């Protein structure tokens, strides 16, 4: 076995070898994901060879992870390969066998485990995700202007068959649908400088949480690096997910929850009379309750302020740190909140040994038409498809992405009080069985709310391997 746990790390060399967007985010306005089939192996290999060696007039360069400072290229180009894609490029059987089983089976075979059933089932996914065996590569172009996306797409289309395209964009002010500010918390890696996380006080994550070939957060445990090292080392895995968000239904549910709470006997404990002014500027009682529900469901107020350290107001004065807080038995942030399920931080959990081991890097942008939660037509439901083009990156899909999906976001094994319930924002809920417990101040117990549907449905996706630049060269020379 190729146990490749390096003690001395030359981080600059690693960053030059790793694809961009893994260790640091691009922070661009636009993204275009191209789902590609390898139909001409020779052309595909030639393209990859040039792309990994700095590109040419006709072929975009793969963007490496190094910090390019002011010399920002007009667009960034990166690729992820599915297991079928590795096969199509001619990777040997022996090598294929060294990839982990969840990756070789592919996302659609893992559907039940990650909650893709009912309306989210892969057999309901639109093209090109209805033929997962043909989706060989997911190529992603990031840019600030549409023209750049078109230019690179045209170049790619000369070497591959483009099966489908998904365009995403930033919604402005860092927001995603449902109206939350996103991409505030991210893992912070040992040795890697990331300005956005400079003041975060979470423990540093070892490089093996995100790249293959380094120590992991599970003490002596190492993940298998696909063989040979030229292919496996400095690679990463990605769960690419197209997640439709029912924005209209989400706002309507917040209305209903606020109506329900207004009549609840304990409502004054949740929101003392007159305290609505404090929750946020210009809010009446109903509107304040809506925002409290939204904040507790996520773990942040929609403007990004952490609920844990600012449970009474979304505009604390003095300001609180967006990243530095922890959970405890007395937490105001509910154990069932999305963020706390996805990262329980240092708080006590059932699987003690798993504390800080299931970390995920999140890179995503929104797709679909605008929806303004502050100003929408309640009479004419706008249910056009919109949502998140999400990428969940990690060194091991089974130990990180799937583990979070199947035990924490859904089922809620980590805390007995939430076991048997799913994430309120994106769990596999049904209105008949869903439940979420709002916390009350001063350990005065909880108020349960019920009847929310599944707000997020899977509409496509793929497990991809994000090879290093060395690995892309290796693939081009097969």
């Amino acid at each position, binding site marked *: 076995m190729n146990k490749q746990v390096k003690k001395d790390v030359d981080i600059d060399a690693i960053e030059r070898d790793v694809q961009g967007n893994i260790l640091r985010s691009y922070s661009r306005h636009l993204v275009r994901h191209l789902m590609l089939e390898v139909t001409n192996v020779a052309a595909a290999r030639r393209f990859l060879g040039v792309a990994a060696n700095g590109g040419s007039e006709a072929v975009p360069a793969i963007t490496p992870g190094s910090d390019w400072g002011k010399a920002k290229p007009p667009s960034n180009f990166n690729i992820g390969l599915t297991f079928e894609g590795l096969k199509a490029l001619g990777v040997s059987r022996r090598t294929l066998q060294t990839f982990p089983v969840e990756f070789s089976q592919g996302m659609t075979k893992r559907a039940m*485990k990650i909650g893709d059933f009912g309306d989210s089932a892969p057999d309901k996914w639109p093209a090109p995700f209805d033929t997962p065996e043909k989706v060989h590569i997911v190529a992603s172009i990031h840019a600030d202007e549409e023209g750049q996306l078109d230019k690179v797409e045209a170049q790619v289309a000369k070497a591959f068959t483009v099966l489908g395209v998904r365009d995403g964009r930033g919604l402005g002010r860092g927001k995603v649908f449902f109206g939350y500010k996103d991409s505030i918390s991210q893992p912070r890696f040992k040795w890697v400088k990331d300005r956005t996380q400079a003041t975060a006080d979470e423990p540093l994550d070892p490089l093996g949480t995100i790249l293959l070939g380094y120590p992991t957060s599970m003490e002596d445990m190492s993940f298998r690096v696909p063989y040979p090292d030229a292919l496996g080392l400095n690679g990463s895995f990605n769960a690419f997910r197209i997640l439709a968000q029912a924005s209209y239904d989400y706002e309507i549910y917040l209305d209903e929850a606020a109506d329900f709470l207004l009549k609840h006997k304990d409502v004054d404990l949740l929101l003392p009379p007159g305290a609505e002014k404090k929750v946020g500027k210009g809010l009446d009682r109903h509107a304040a309750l809506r925002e409290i529900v939204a904040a507790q469901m996520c773990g942040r107020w929609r403007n990004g302020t952490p609920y844990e350290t600012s449970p009474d107001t979304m505009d604390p004065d003095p300001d609180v740190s967006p990243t530095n807080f922890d959970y405890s038995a007395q937490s105001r942030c509910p154990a069932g909140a999305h963020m706390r399920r996805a990262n329980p931080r240092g708080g006590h959990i059932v*699987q003690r040994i798993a504390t800080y081991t299931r970390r995920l890097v999140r890179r995503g942008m929104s797709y679909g038409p605008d929806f303004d939660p502050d100003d929408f037509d309640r009479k004419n439901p706008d249910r056009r498809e919109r949502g998140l083009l999400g990428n969940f990156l990690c060194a*091991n899909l089974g130990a990180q992405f799937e583990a979070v999906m199947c035990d924490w976001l859904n089922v809620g094994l980590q805390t007995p009080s939430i*076991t048997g319930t799913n994430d309120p924002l994106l769990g596999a809920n049904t209105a008949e069985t869903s439940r979420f417990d709002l916390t009350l101040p001063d350990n005065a117990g909880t108020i349960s709310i019920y009847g929310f549907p599944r707000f997020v449905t899977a509409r496509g996706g793929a497990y991809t391997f994000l090879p290093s630049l060395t690995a892309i060269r290796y693939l081009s020379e097969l």
Partner: protein
Amino acid sequence: MTNKDTWFNRYVNSLPTRGWFKLLSRYVVVPYWIWRDPKPKLPGGPRESPQPSENTQRMMNLIMPLKDPSPMGRAMAAMAIAQNVDEIFSGLDNVGTVHTARFLILGDNLCMISVYDGDFSNYIRDFIETIGSVFDAVISQIKGAEHMIPTCDHVEEFIEWVHDHDLFQAPDFPTDLFALQDAAKGLPTDGPAHEIMTLPRDLILQLHANPNLSLGGGYRSYPGYSAAQVRDKFGVGW
């Protein structure tokens, strides 16, 4: 064939008890069907299901062939467990999702039978992380497992190996077997319905591929609460 109580029907019904027929079945009929309609080995352990309540408690029936099934070899296996009792206790505590676990020496196998909460891979991975050295001691006594020592460096492979040696759990509703067999063969799940008549034959063929199995996923006398929920309710800390 009618349902009338004729001598002929009585005779056909008595076939399974007649010696000549048993011989014919064992040496001709069953091998013929195994050749004609082979069934892939069905995967071990619980199947994924959408309902969290059904998902919480699960059974593992891990059957591991002893490297040396002689009394001496069995004693070695027994010692491997006995020497690690303290680690096993603390491991169960730290993993947090295990209700009970026990080891049996049965036939030429060492068996680990347990009830745990949630996902199988997470359970095994957390166990390796907590007390990998115990697994190492155990599998050093097992045929065809030595190459995975130390387990902490062969996590993925070891999880797959355990999955492979975990008994197939026959469905509680016998006719659900058809769908599992079709899925294992990669046939579409919405194909033509199977004749109920063929169930005994399909079961026999499956038992050829999976000679040992768990009948159902286990029965319990109370809803499937998690270990931590039980501990929490009784105030023993979780």
